[in-house]
């Protein structure tokens, strides 16, 4: 009987290490070997009860205009082909339901919802819009820094001087965020500087 309990304990311990272990392995592999893409973003500041403060990355690349013959549903897993635009930012050039043979520059993601109507920069347009739920929409920051980061984002948004983007590594369809940048500087550094200035002025 005791033997059975020990075997059960061993299997339990193995499973409890395997899940976070697999998460680390997959992400480390993607970070080390993946292709680099820059995604333009605008962050917000929600909080997660377990994992603390993070900024929600709202991607400029969303939505994508799909072929009207394509049959997809919200929540469905799809493969998007990425390329770089003239400014070096990621853009979606294709969408497939089945896994492509060549996974170079391909991101496995989910369809969030579809619309027939979109409004961007005050202009309305009608097409088959697909909004994605990317697997890298959160960027965790130290508790005190997340609201500051949002402030930085809104400041940059109103003045239109800075660019705000996420550096994402992609390999074999999997993605991992490397950093979030403001004007080619790490967001964490920018916020740290802001905090220092704030405490100096006090």
């Amino acid at each position, binding site marked *: 009987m005791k033997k059975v309990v020990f075997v059960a304990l061993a299997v339990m311990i193995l499973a409890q290490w395997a899940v976070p272990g697999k998460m680390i392995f997959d992400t480390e592999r993607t970070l080390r070997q993946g292709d680099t893409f820059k995604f333009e973003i605008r962050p917000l500041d929600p909080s997660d009860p377990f994992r603390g403060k993070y900024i929600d990355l709202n991607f400029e690349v969303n939505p994508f205009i799909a072929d009207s013959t394509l049959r997809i549903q919200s929540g469905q897993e799809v493969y998007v082909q990425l390329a770089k635009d003239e400014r070096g930012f990621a853009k979606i050039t294709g969408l497939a339901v089945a896994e492509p043979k060549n996974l170079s520059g391909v991101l496995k993601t989910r369809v969030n919802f579809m619309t027939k109507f979109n409004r961007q920069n005050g202009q309305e347009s009608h097409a088959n819009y697909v909004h994605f739920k990317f*697997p890298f929409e959160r960027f965790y920051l130290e508790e005190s820094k997340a609201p500051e980061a949002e402030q930085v984002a809104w400041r940059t948004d109103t003045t239109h001087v800075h660019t705000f983007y996420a550096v994402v590594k992609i390999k074999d369809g999997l993605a991992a965020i490397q950093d979030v940048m403001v004007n080619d500087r790490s967001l964490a550094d920018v916020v740290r500087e802001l905090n220092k200035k704030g405490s100096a002025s006090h």
Partner: protein
Amino acid sequence: MKSVLKEVEAWREAGVITDDVAERIRAYYRDHENKGNSRLTIAFGILGALLVGLGLLLLVAHNWDTFPKGIKLTFAFLPLLATQGVAFVLIKRDRDSAGWREGCATLLTLSIAISISLVSQVYNINGDLAKFLEVWMILSLPVIYVLRSSMTLLLYVAGVTWFGLFGYEELWRTPTTHAIQLTYGILLIAALPWYVRLIRTKPGTTFTCLGHWFFACSVTLVIGTVAHEDWRWLGPAYVSLFGIFILLGQSDRLSGTRLIGNGFLVLGTTGTLALLFFLTFDDYWKTIGQLPIARLLPREFYAWCVLSGIGLVLLMARLSKHRFSELHGTELAFLLMVPITFLGFSHAGLAQSLVNGVVLMVAVATVWQGATENRLGRMNVGLLILTALVVCRFFDTNLSFLLRGIIFMAVGAGFFAANFWMVKKRNAHR
């Protein structure tokens, strides 16, 4: 207790009790004290583990930017490693201390959440809350069985319920996959063997009673996620669910439990009565009357059929051991609602009147049982149901004020008469 033991010694010396009786009394109190101590150890063990675990979770949530990745990951796995180590030692030494087992299992369950949370935080891995809860609960399930932990069972049922509630979000997606509902069902069933064991081996204990409440509340909260096409079928489905709860609460295994600990009976009875009262108004019947017959078969309809079927089996099992007159009335309500609901499609008014009849039947049966079993409390509950029914009809019937006044006076007089009769009967009995 010391004073009692002194008294025992004095009685023994005075020859009031024999040496043997004195020793038996001392042994009784020693045993009693041990039980109390063990309960305290379990309670403090769990409380300590919960506080430490939750404190660690909050420290993790702060997200320490200054620490390098390696240190953060070490912290992610440290609580897991430590609690798994303690679990190993406990099993190896075969120490059957419930306090240690429960405390270690509680901390281990929280350590699993810490490790997944910190790894997702360090690597910015998305994963929504539902997915996180699902993985956490799957990894916590073996803790219940390996460490024989009832506290983990409660945490697990709470976590699985939280996960199941995300099924309501899923309803807005088209087409709905119902993947969350299916996973919820499998995860809840996976914990049943330990719960059944608890009922068999430790009936009436705090953990077992909490188990009744947790399971009953969980199913009540999540069963609504089966809604998909027509929520109007959910009303009868819930009546059947509460009927099942009442029958489970009255089963041989649970009927000995004190009322406050019998979550199934309390939730089932209050739920049945609340729903029946709702159905005595015409709002529901107005909408079901408009239901086209072609839409007879939405998913909610099947849920109702399955729940009614289970209820019927339980009712048969109860009737095989007890006489029909021993039934309380509330456990029959779900069965009576089957023909009444179908009748509601064509004769909404008649169906509504019949539900009023069912409530009246429940009230009269409760009063009758209270009177025959000499239970004043139960008799008054029956009278309260009757009063509530009269008050409800006071608002939506076209009866004249004269008639309503007479009915109210009659019910009030009934209250007085019944209580007076019961007290007189008790006094005569004395």
